[in-house]
């Protein structure tokens, strides 16, 4: 009677199979996300308001979601026009975009305005997430601010910071915020946000250090 014995090759096969099984839930999780776009998401003192948000289009879905408004405003905080958000998905791809024109914002004594904002995110199965944004005509407290175009450009403001072209890109997705205003302990306002796939969690986002601001 012969007894089967597992050689080195067998152990390798077993190890690979185990690794695949361990990784499978993560892959499955990655596919549960999808596409989403929002013209504005503002959280002030714990209260969140979304203007022109598409909701989530699940990954792997053939379809599209959109939301828009000719004007949009959150009293005492911001106003803009031509709010537009859309996410388009197919079996292996998601494209999301959000835009807003003529933004005017007043927050914690700071005034912020732009001519136009747009965020775009794309994810194709098997490829890293991609993103881009556009910030035109930015002024903060009446002073024009040059926009470098580089991801995660920061501009300090009274009580906080403005992040331009904020990006969280990963192997399975992308999140892009054209304009992100943070006033510590008071407000968190994102204007033009696009998500595709499963971007890395915010905790893994690489952002420049902001000494003295927090």
């Amino acid at each position, binding site marked *: 009677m012969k007894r089967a014995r597992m050689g080195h090759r067998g152990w390798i096969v077993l190890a690979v199979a185990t690794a695949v099984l361990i990784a499978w839930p993560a892959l499955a999780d990655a596919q549960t996300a999808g596409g989403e776009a929002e013209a504005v998401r503002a959280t002030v003192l714990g209260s969140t308001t979304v203007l022109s948000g598409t909701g989530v289009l699940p990954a792997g879905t*053939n*379809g*599209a979601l*959109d*939301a*828009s*408004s*000719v*004007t949009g405003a959150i009293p005492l905080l911001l106003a803009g*026009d*031509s*709010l*537009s958000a*859309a996410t*388009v*998905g*197919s*079996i292996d791809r998601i*494209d999301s*975009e*959000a*835009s*807003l*024109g*003529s933004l005017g914002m007043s927050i914690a004594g700071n005034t912020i305005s732009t*001519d*136009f904002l*747009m965020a*775009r995110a794309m994810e194709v199965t098997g490829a890293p997430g991609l993103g881009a944004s*556009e910030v*035109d005509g930015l002024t903060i407290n009446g002073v024009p601010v040059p926009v470098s175009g580089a991801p995660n450009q920061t501009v300090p403001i009274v009580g906080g910071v403005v992040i331009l072209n904020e990006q969280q890109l990963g192997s399975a997705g992308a999140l892009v915020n054209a304009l992100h205003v943070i006033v510590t302990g008071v407000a968190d306002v994102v204007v033009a946000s696009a998500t595709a796939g499963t971007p890395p969690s915010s905790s893994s986002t690489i952002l420049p250090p902001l000494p003295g601001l927090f």
Partner: protein
Amino acid sequence: MRTFVWMVTSLLMVLLSVGPAGAWGTSQEAACDFVTGGGFIVGAGGSSLSGGSHGNFGVGGGVKNGAFWGHLEYNDHGTTPPMQIHGTSVTAYFATSTTEREIDGTCRVNGADGFTYRVRVNDLGEPGINRDQFSILINETGYHAGYYFGDGPIRGGNIQLHKGNASNTPPPGFTCQ
């Protein structure tokens, strides 16, 4: 010249829509994909958008699960307050070239119903700024602005033509182009 081309094209499309399709009761055609975009145009002085003024827009069009899909938002900052156009439905969506789509629909102008619009968007690559095109015509008022009316390409933003997928089924009576 662009205005002339637009007018001739419009006339041809009207004739086609009431001609063979209407008379014979055959199906009409729709582009079976999606287009989305946002941005602004700047008036060059020859359109309804005054010279140097911004026309902000957000737009989407397509066919989805047997119905037309999309939206239109437009603000003309050459007027005070800005003239506002808000799309309330999409009634047609078709290709005018491999990269250009026309979206037709109903809209409100400054909050009043009873208007119809025609928008053409053209995705000519990346980046969209100074390259992609947006044009708008309000049939009842004659308001017109954008590329076809001498305002040039978009000065900010992007137009994105999305590849069709299984959800891009046209409304009843329409076939894919």
